């Protein structure tokens, strides 16, 4: 081994050691980071609490956060919140799950056959850029106002981000990796399983995460149009009955579910593409 290599190795070891601070310091650092990151949200809640009490806004239309919290608790205790949340989540997850099951394999297939991708590209762009909610009346017309139309609209809206991301993921696999696989005379199934799938995974996951956000967004709107249960229905009917704190309680629940779902998908993404961390 030459002196240079030794230096190269030592530099490597040092940088690896520098990257791992003491556990206590890391724990404290994490705590500080959490405090810092939640500061803006706590600030918003403080303004929400103070503004109606100081008479800056009409407390009939924007009750202080504490009243909303109380209303939320009541909804939780009498079971309304849970029932509606479960109804919404059931629809969202069914539509989202079906979209993943359909769009990922389809996207892999379309992405792999270049002519197909080029042929369908413009059509897919049109569909993606047509707001799903604009099509809601069509879905209601064709499928009625029951569960089918709501799950279908979620499915429809979730398919596009996943499909388009999967197609571009397959098409942007590093060409030298494909060349390597070809030089090793890898059979097509192996090529797919060992090169294309793992290389495409990060971009596919981006699409899945987008779809996760879309699934809740679209569903809530659909539930406002015609439903007898669900968080969208809860918010809408509360507004209709002038139960303003309950309405805000519903809205807060929706955003909490949205954030939670996204965090879950981010964690999954991390798990499956751990090699990508600190690559940038």
């Amino acid at each position, binding site marked *: 081994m030459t002196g240079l290599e030794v230096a190269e190795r030592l530099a490597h070891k040092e940088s690896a050691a520098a990257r791992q601070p003491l556990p206590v310091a890391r724990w404290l650092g994490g705590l500080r980071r959490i405090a810092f990151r939640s500061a803006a949200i706590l600030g918003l809640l403080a303004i929400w609490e103070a503004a109606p009490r100081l008479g800056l806004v009409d407390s009939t239309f924007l009750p202080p956060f504490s009243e909303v919290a109380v209303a939320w608790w009541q909804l939780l205790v009498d079971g309304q919140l849970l029932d509606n949340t479960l109804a919404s989540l059931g629809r969202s997850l069914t539509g989202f799950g079906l979209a993943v099951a359909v769009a990922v394999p389809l996207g892999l297939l379309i992405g792999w056959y270049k002519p197909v991708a080029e042929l369908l590209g413009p059509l897919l762009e049109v569909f993606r850029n047509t707001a799903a909610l604009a099509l809601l009346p069509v879905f209601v017309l064709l499928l009625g106002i029951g569960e089918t139309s709501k799950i279908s609209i979620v499915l429809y809206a979730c398919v596009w981000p996943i499909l388009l991301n999967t197609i571009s993921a397959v098409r942007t696999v590093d060409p030298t990796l494909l060349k390597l696989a070809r030089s*090793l005379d890898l059979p097509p199934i192996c090529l797919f399983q060992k090169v294309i799938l793992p290389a495409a995974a990060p971009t596919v996951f981006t699409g899945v995460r987008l779809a996760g956000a879309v699934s809740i967004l679209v569903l809530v709107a659909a539930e406002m149009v015609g439903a007898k249960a669900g968080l969208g229905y809860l918010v809408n009917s509360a507004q209709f009955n002038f139960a303003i704190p309950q309405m805000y309680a519903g809205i807060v629940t929706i955003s909490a579910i949205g954030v939670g779902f996204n965090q879950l998908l981010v964690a999954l993404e991390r798990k499956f593409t751990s090699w990508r961390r600190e690559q940038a």
Partner: protein
Amino acid sequence: MITLRGVTKDFGDFTALAGIDLDVAAGEFVVLVGPSGCGKSTLLDLLAGLAQPTSGRLLLHGKPIDGPGLDRGIVFQQYALLPWRTALGNVEFGLEATGVPRRQRAAQAREFLDLVGLTGFEQRHPHELSGGMRQRVAIARSLAYDPEVLLMDEPFAALDAQTRESLQDELLRIWERTGKTIVFITHSIDEAVYLGQQVAVLTSRPGRVKRSVRIDLGNRQEIRDLRSSPEFARYRHEIWELLHDEVARAQRLEVAR
């Protein structure tokens, strides 16, 4: 062992290679040097079986090369490592293609990482390794499934000068130990003279072998700073003369485009 006769490759009405003749003996280290855009990489693709010549013949042991095969290993300039696999996993990747039983793979991969001086780095991912180390992993991967020929496409071009020199020495050491036949592509005259037993100088577009120069620098172990020796300078100058006109011509073509 490798014989090229009148190998020509056209892309539409653009001729990349026009009648390449070349002989490579078993265990020989041959360097192809030429100006940029002379079809060096095209030639390597043909040797790898990733493309077919428009006309002419490429023979390996007297049999035509008609597709990729595990008797030839490629080392790419951009390393072509799978970023989601560790160094060990990347070396195993080549072994999976050859059908080495799972249990033997890890041991064999370790052995070749050791050969390229990467013991202790088995569990690192490519992004945790320096450019030089990544190329070592790629070399280990190509050697692990024991091809007869190693095809190297400007493997050290992306590395800094010092890493490049240490890898050149490493490669010579590996070559002496394993007795592989190596076809090495570069645009660096110094690299060509330092590594090659035979240096084939290619002309600029369309690519043709202008002349093959045999390099004999004596016993490497005896000369301390080979690159400063008078023999080295003489060979360097000889190839520089051969290349000089070609580089000028390539630049004119570049401007004319």
